[in-house]
């Protein structure tokens, strides 16, 4: 299978992108400025991210759609207002996470944003659990552009007026270049920002306008350091099909109203709510400058293995190495001293609160 290119590929090349293959797509890892400058520009101004490789799944049709989707996802979809979004999960019967996703209620159904590497499998799984009366469209005619950072609303407002009225985790239809676009106020950087779903043919024009108004293209490298500082999970690293949302410390994303109801994986989750879990996702701050990457083993002070790092890097804004991982829950309290095995040496570190970098989201409802 040949590698897929997004509608912004020519623009990536023009701005000096270094490419990597990610989930079958040729994606920019960084541009000329490099990861640290791109990261900082997003935190101080605004950054544009091509996330067109992610899946945009539209589900519509039939009366009982909300009820049927609640049998799949542990979100309170009945309470969701049109254009409102929620973070949720597709789980297996063991409560393991098959994907983490954002569900938005649309006029005639739901839009679900899926991880690139999971999207085709998600489609098959969701389709197999829904009656044939429902229409599923994994729409590959749309690009997805994220604009993130403190200047995001000013920049986007110049290009698409009144988008600044959107509240966090809410969306709406707008017009750009005489065509319909769908914008949500959301993101993956710990900054205020937007995600814009737009036809491929219109995407390059939009991004050029954003650049003319002071924003810059940012690669997947900085996207990764930004999300780690914000304490956000990357599917495949921090979440997988053997880890439940409770273990991942994402309990807040399972609303209380759904705990006693049925959905895929609900039995396991109910048990975990009652009896607790053995491992928990935590933030980790090494005491020295050493970086602990994914798969680094974690030890206690008696040299017993107690867990494993799932993501780790140098945080350009916090100016310190940061990591997250899973430890046995008796070691999950903040300030617990742990040791990370890096190149044969045991590096002292401490369990710390997430996020590493304080969030700057636009006012609006935050679901806890």
């Amino acid at each position: 299978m040949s590698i897929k290119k997004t509608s912004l590929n020519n623009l990536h090349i023009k701005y000096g992108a270094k490419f990597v293959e990610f989930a079958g797509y040729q994606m920019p890892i960084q541009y000329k400025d490099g990861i640290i400058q791109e990261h900082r520009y997003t935190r101080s101004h605004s950054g544009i991210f091509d996330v067109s490789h992610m899946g945009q799944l539209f589900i519509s049709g039939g009366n009982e759609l909300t009820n049927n989707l609640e049998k799949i996802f542990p979100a309170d979809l009945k309470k969701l207002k049109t254009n409102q979004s929620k973070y949720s999960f597709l789980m297996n019967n063991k409560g393991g996470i098959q994907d983490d996703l954002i569900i938005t209620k649309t006029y005639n159904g739901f839009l679900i944003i899926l991880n690139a590497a999971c999207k085709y499998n998600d489609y098959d799984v969701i389709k197999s659990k829904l009656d044939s009366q429902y229409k599923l469209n994994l729409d590959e005619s749309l690009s997805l552009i994220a604009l993130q950072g403190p200047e995001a609303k000013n920049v986007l407002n110049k290009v698409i007026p009144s988008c600044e009225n959107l509240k966090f985790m809410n969306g709406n239809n707008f017009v750009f270049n005489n065509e319909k676009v769908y914008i949500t106020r959301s993101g993956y950087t710990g900054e205020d920002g937007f995600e814009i779903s737009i036809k491929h043919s219109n995407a390059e024009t939009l991004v050029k306008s954003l650049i003319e108004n002071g924003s810059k293209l940012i690669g997947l490298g900085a996207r990764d350091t930004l999300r780690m500082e914000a304490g956000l999970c990357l599917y495949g690293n921090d979440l997988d099909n053997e880890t439940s949302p409770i273990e991942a410390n994402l309990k807040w994303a399972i609303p209380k109203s759904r705990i006693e109801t049925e959905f895929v994986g609900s039995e396991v989750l109910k048990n975990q709510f009652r009896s607790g879990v053995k491992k928990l996702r935590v933030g980790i701050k090494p005491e020295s400058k050493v970086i602990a990457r994914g798969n680094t083993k974690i030890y206690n002070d008696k040299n017993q293995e107690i867990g494993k790092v799932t993501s780790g890097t140098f945080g350009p804004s916090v100016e310190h190495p940061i990591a997250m991982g899973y430890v046995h829950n008796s070691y999950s309290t903040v300030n617990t001293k742990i040791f990370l095995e890096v190149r044969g040496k045991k590096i002292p570190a401490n369990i710390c609160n997430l996020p590493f970098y304080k969030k700057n989201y636009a006012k609006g409802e935050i679901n806890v």
Partner: protein
Amino acid sequence: MSEVKYSKEHEWIKLDGEEATIGITKHATEMLGDIVFAELPEKGSNVKKDGNAGVVESTKAASDVYTPVGGEVIDTNQMIVDDPSKINEDPEETAWFFKLKIKDKTEMDNLMNKEEYEKFAKETSS
């Protein structure tokens, strides 16, 4: 001072009598991206030709540093440990990694000169 030589692992080496200064090339730093961590061999330790002699890490990944010749480590550059971004700024001058007292000058024989290295770097990065 003799001319600078280069290894296939993208280190440079400058020989002055028995004393060699070693660092990584500009080309290596461009491939690595922003360097955020450097670990150097201990002063007084002995390193073998092509052996491990430190680590550099970018935001993306860790990479081993090898020494193109063997010898005793007589000095290390604390500046790059304190501020690893100096390696990106000035890799072939002030941001050297370590100095060795070398034992066998013939270990230099198979290293590349500047012109050969530039050709090698161009071929291997494309």
